[in-house]
């Protein structure tokens, strides 16, 4: 159990947050400069907050009022940096053994060898950091942090500088370790995919403040603020004025001013006609209706007719830009290559698209 309540003023940036984290893997997610690294640093003791409290498993690491500030080397908080930061003058073995040098030789060697096996570093014991690859370096850094049996492990975008296949492998390694060791992990990233793969819980930070905490599904499908929706890739966010409400049916109609279209969206308690609301739909949730198939009458959805003005190939998927208004484009639609090939769409083609009711999410904060 990790409780943090910190304030830190750095001139043009201030951190002000309050968090309560459980075991498992917590992902600190947010854009660059949102305070993710700073938060980690206050937990590890690398940075001293201006005020507040940090408590891990009941042990007070920091408490401004009571003048408690446990020095870094007594906190037993492991830290893996973005750059592996291995000691260049020590072998892989010695690096991993660094945190447990107080143990008797036999026990120490046993632990190190165990780590080497777990992190797939066999055969590299006598190599120096400059002789191994980036992925191997980070695995060594992980092994080094874990060998010291920390009460908490902090990882600051540790895989950011690695190739994709290596990243995938390391993420799985991390998940495995998380399950085996049951050491709580806090993982910082700005990559949505990474957050989704790793997280038990997600904390979305922005500008030094917490925007939302919840499961990955919570933040992904039910963003509580405009920013969270944006950061998590809900690329179609609309601002509309409520023109009609039908609470009995759980529906309301909004007029999206900028785009000039109406939409039927789930009703939200307390909303009255004239209010402004924000709602969003993820690009991969927008349905493209086949031209030759009649629209099912009972399809509860918003249907729009328009043109595909631009198609962007993204490797494993295609992004289509749909336009029906005078704006550059209205919706961003994401479909798999398979679906794309099946639909045989070309730029400039007229299509019908649908917002399925379940895919629409009204953002609570949107005013």
């Amino acid at each position, binding site marked *: 159990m990790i409780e943090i309540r910190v304030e830190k003023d750095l001139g043009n940036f201030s951190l002000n947050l309050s968090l309560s984290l459980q075991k498992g893997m917590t992902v600190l997610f947010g854009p660059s400069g949102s305070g993710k690294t700073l938060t980690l640093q206050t937990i590890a*003791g690398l940075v001293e907050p201006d005020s507040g409290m940090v408590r891990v498993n009941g042990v007070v690491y920091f408490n401004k009022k009571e003048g408690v500030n446990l020095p870094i080397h*007594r*906190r037993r908080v*492991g830290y893996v940096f973005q750059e592996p*930061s291995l000691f260049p003058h020590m072998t892989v073995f010695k690096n991993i053994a660094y945190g447990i040098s107080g143990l008797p030789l036999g026990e120490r060697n046993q632990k190190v060898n165990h780590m080497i096996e777990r992190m797939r570093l066999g055969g590299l014991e006598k190599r120096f950091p400059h002789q191994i690859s980036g992925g191997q370096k980070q695995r060594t850094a992980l092994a080094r942090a874990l060998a*010291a049996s920390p009460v908490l492990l902090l990882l600051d975008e540790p895989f950011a500088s690695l190739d994709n296949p290596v990243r995938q492998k390391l993420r799985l390694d991390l998940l495995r370790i998380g399950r085996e060791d049951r050491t709580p992990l806090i993982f910082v990233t700005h990559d949505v995919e990474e957050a989704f793969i790793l997280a038990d819980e997600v904390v979305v930070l922005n500008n030094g403040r917490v925007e939302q905490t919840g499961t990955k599904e919570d933040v992904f499908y039910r963003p509580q603020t405009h920013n969270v929706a944006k950061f998590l890739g809900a690329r179609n966010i609309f601002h509309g004025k409520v023109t009609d409400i039908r609470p009995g049916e759980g529906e309301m109609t909004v007029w999206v001013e900028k785009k000039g279209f109406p939409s039927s969206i789930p009703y939200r308690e307390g909303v009255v006609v004239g209010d402004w609301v924000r709602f969003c739909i993820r690009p991969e949730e927008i349905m493209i209706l086949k031209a030759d198939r009649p629209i099912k009458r009972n399809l509860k959805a918003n249907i729009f007719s328009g043109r595909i003005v631009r198609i962007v190939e993204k490797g494993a998927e295609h992004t289509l830009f749909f336009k029906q208004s005078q704006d550059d484009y209205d919706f961003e639609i994401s479909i798999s290559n398979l679906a794309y090939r099946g639909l045989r769409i070309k730029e400039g083609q007229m299509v019908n698209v649908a917002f399925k009711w379940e895919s629409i999410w009204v953002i609570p904060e949107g005013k």
Partner: protein
Amino acid sequence: MEEDASGRNMDESVLFSLRLSLQVAIAATVLVVLVGTGMSFILARKSFRGKEILDILLTLPLVLPPTVTGYYLILFMGRNGLLGNALFRWTGWSIMFTWYAAVLASFIVALPLMIKTTRAAIESVDQNLIKVSYTLGHGELKTFFKVILPLSKKGIIAGAVLSFARAMGEFGATLMVAGNIPGKTNTMPIAIYTSASSGDWSKANMMVVFFTLVSAAFLYIANKLSKKGF
């Protein structure tokens, strides 16, 4: 063969001066490395009131003429000096005109050289490495010995070499506090000066050649050591 004031003949007195210079330089260098490394660490990693002033004080001997440095040393360590007085009253002994004074003079003038190189080396150690060491349970002192020191080795060795060279060549301050007592405090540079100013060219030549060879040999060894990475 002629004898000098200490009763030694020319060869003996040349060898004496050489041995004395080496002795003084080695003693001074050992002190410089120990004190210099410690001071460099403090200057590189700590902040405190008066740090700027300390830095300037420690660097002064680098820019002041050696005779001025020597003068200050007399003020402090002379029989009637600030510290020298207390020392004399306590032990009846004065450092002036002993080879210890030569060591002190060399130490003071070489210290800034050591600090400059060592401090730069310490400051260039990757901050993250130091942070990582802390998170792995090692405090400041342990981190200094296990991480900072090994990674600053090149700078420290370079500083030591420079300091040794400076100590070997020290003349002005040494002359003022240790004097030019034949057979007691006449280090090589002083002996060469004495011989040259009294026209004893053969003696001066011999000393210059000796001195140059020994210094060159030392530099060669030092270079080899620093390349090997030790």
